[in-house]
């Protein structure tokens, strides 16, 4: 079985994240870049399956600037067999539609039985890429899974939807997305890091995939305005001297919050 795991390089959420007020794009210099945690968990799902099924091929794939190659390599060090990196300056400002079309073209080119993605990335937080890919690839989508079972010809799992818990099942090939309810990923060990250097790492341009980034016949979603909100400032801080609870009650009453 061939499993493609979609991973993303994102600004480290433990740091201050900034947007460029001119372009509206993530200011990559402002914070350290890391492999998105949810993508690592998605990779863990694939690796657990591969651990138990020797004939499993795991490919990590990402559409990201050239500089993201090191981050993507971490996926190889964790245990993926190969990597596909779509890096093209023309894709820097891609909207969701172009991102999905590009990833779908790369997934088709690589071939797959199962695509595993995160449910939401920590930077875009769009959460629509998995469903868009399923439509473009003409396969079922089963998103936001909190448990996953993979067999030779199907994938099934549980998802928590508003007001209920749902069991779903899709025949393969399919696209699934997983949530952070699934286990944290393994750490790459020394052996993995050394082995990663020899693993296939393919870098593709938009043209390699037959994608025309500046296709104006397609409708785009564009940013028309951006504003930074002033950061919140600290208010009163007191140390409890036996009357902390009373003081909070007074604050709530004074501000008509109760």
């Amino acid at each position, binding site marked *: 079985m061939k499993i493609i795991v979609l991973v993303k390089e994102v600004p480290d959420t433990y740091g201050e994240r*900034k947007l460029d007020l001119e372009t*509206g794009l993530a200011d990559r210099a402002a914070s350290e870049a890391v492999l998105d945690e949810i993508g690592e968990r998605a990779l863990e799902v694939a690796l657990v399956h591969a651990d138990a099924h020797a004939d499993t091929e795991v490919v990590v794939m990402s559409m990201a600037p050239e500089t993201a190659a090191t981050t993507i390599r971490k996926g190889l060090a964790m245990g993926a067999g190969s990597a596909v990196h779509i890096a093209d300056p023309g894709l820097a400002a891609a909207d969701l539609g172009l991102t999905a079309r590009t990833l779908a073209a790369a997934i088709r080119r690589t071939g797959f039985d199962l695509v595993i993605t995160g449910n939401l990335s920590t930077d875009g937080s769009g*959460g629509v890429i998995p469903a868009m890919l*399923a439509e473009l690839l003409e396969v079922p989508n089963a998103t936001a899974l909190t448990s996953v079972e993979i067999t030779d010809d199907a994938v099934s799992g549980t998802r928590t939807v508003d007001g209920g*818990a749902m069991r*779903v099942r899709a025949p393969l090939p399919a696209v699934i997305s997983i949530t952070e309810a699934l286990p944290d990923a393994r750490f790459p060990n020394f052996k993995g890091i050394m082995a990663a250097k020899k693993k296939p790492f393919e870098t593709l341009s938009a043209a390699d995939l037959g994608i025309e980034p500046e296709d104006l016949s397609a409708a785009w979603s564009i940013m028309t305005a951006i504003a930074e909100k002033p950061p*919140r400032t600290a208010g009163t801080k007191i140390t409890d001297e036996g009357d902390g609870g009373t003081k909070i009650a007074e*604050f709530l009453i004074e501000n008509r919050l109760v």
Partner: protein
Amino acid sequence: MTDHPADAILVLLEATPTGELATSAAGLLAAAAGIGTPVALAVAAPGEAQSLAEQAAALGAERVLAVEATSTQSELTVPHVDALAAAVKLIAPDAVLISNSIEGRDIAGRFAARTGAPIAVDAVGVSRDDEGVLAHHSVYGGAYNIVSAATFGPLVVTVRQGAIDARAESRPVVTESLEVPASGAASAAIESVEPVTETSSRPELRGAKRVVSGGRGLGSAEKFALVEELADALGAAVGASRAAVDAGYIPANHQVGQTGVSVSPQLYVALGISGAIQHKAGMQTAKNIVAVNKDPDAPIFEVADFGVVGDVFTVVPQLISALAERKR
């Protein structure tokens, strides 16, 4: 056939597993009413669309397109996308508004990919200018406000649940049944749905006016009851940090933060929460923040309007008594 409004905004109605109209519908219809004529689309099991249509009309839908099919209960996403495609073709709306729920995002994503429509996700509001519909977003934990639009054609917008307080005026019920050709697109099968029965009378976290959240500092699931007690005293919804969810103090749907729910209440009370950046991302747009933490250097104090350095197990019971005292 009836004429359709020229400034139609199509709203996809969502139903709960028990067939009720989802709470997101009220905000979606009000948002649509603010920028055009709200036309709702009800996709339901046979016999269930009319009830959704009546509820939607009461919330401001000018008319409701009704699609009834058994497949909506057995197949994921695709039946809704097929219905949406048929509705958009029929009424040519200026925008399509969908709840930014798990299901809503899937439907929006597949629909946008199928039709090539541009998509704007997790909007907290919509507006209109001379050129069309604009979506307003609050990103990076509310640090930036962004406006987005389509270069042309209708914009598909997923709207953050609980973000829109406005309500539209009720209208008479007008239902039109809509024929939907099945696309035959591959879909996942829904094997079962177990409705989670609401056991508490507490407000829903999303859109709540007051939220009391607890973190790892509560120490155990039993002791987390203190958070619930204060929430009840304030008529607030209960939230939690990811650490509290991971430790099993409370189910994941109560998580506030970057990968949980984003809230913007009048009052947010953080108990035993350090204030990690990912937690702040989901609550720092609250109007008033109160924090109790025994570590004076906890980052939560950087955003708190009123912070108490102290032990939650002494401060909070005193606060609860003070509130009870006042009620008497």
